[in-house]
């Protein structure tokens, strides 16, 4: 047997509607059954926690605030606690070869009156080159 798909999908409308009527298509509404089923469902699911979302611990907020304050203090530490270096002539926050050049220019412009001695420039230049030319001198 080789059933034809076209035939399988076809049922005369008169027969189909009769079949529906025979099937008691009218729903039998019964509020008591509805209530029984839904009450059972509520009781069944009541065993679960009221919320499945993870609860935030009571101490989470104060802890977060404390962490934020600590982080801010660490980040701002150079501004609050570190005194500016005397050798940071250009105020860049680090002492490097540019400060040596700035000191040299100040001495060239003002001579002894600038307060910058040649030995200070040499000492600073030596420290920068001797330690690490790529890093700032503290």
């Amino acid at each position: 047997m080789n059933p034809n798909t076209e035939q399988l999908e076809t049922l005369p409308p008169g027969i189909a509607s009769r079949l529906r009527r025979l099937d008691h298509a009218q729903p039998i509404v019964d509020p008591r059954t509805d209530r029984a089923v839904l009450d059972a469902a509520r009781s069944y699911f009541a065993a679960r926690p009221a919320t499945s979302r993870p609860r935030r611990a009571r101490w989470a907020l104060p802890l977060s605030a404390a962490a934020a304050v600590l982080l801010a203090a660490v980040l701002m530490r150079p501004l609050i606690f570190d005194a500016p270096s005397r050798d940071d002539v250009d105020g860049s926050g680090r002492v490097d070869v540019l400060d040596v050049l700035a000191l040299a220019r100040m001495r060239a412009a003002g001579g002894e009156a600038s307060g910058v001695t040649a030995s200070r420039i040499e000492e600073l230049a030596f420290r920068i080159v001797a330690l690490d030319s790529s890093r700032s001198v503290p």
Partner: protein
Amino acid sequence: MRPSDRRSDEELVAICNAGDALEAARAFETLYRRHRDFVLRVARRFTRDRELALDALQETFTYLLNKFPPAGDGLVLTARLSTLLYPAAKNAAITAVRKARRSAGAGDAMLEELPAETPADAEPIDAALAALSPERRELLTLRFVDDLSLAEIAVALDVPLGTVKSRLHLALRELREDNRIKDLFDP
């Protein structure tokens, strides 16, 4: 239930699986209201009795409920929910009939023994449908009343798709060859 709840059965099942108590109960209620009439019709088909059908309805949704945690492992829908509810409702209905017959002293009886509802002065169509075997009538009902696809019927009845096709073909051929309604097929 929210009347305009447009969430799919899959979404509602997922909430029943993992939602909190309130969400899960609401999702289950939506599923119940959405499929109640279908389950009731199926139960009525196999019991032909209102009270037994209502018992089967309750049993069917208790069965569904127990699929979800904490008692169940959770439900994963691989086909329409009606294909899961259909066999559950059918079994619950048959069990309800058996129980009723036992308590009435009528012994155990299979579904096949239930007579088709055909009054003596039945229309030719009714008589032709009643003459079908319960399996063939069931197949026609699933296809043309419940609007299940052939693949869904195969899942609901737990038989291969090819079996559904050939059984449906035979059912339609039987009707087509019935002299009482032959003219309906070839007007």
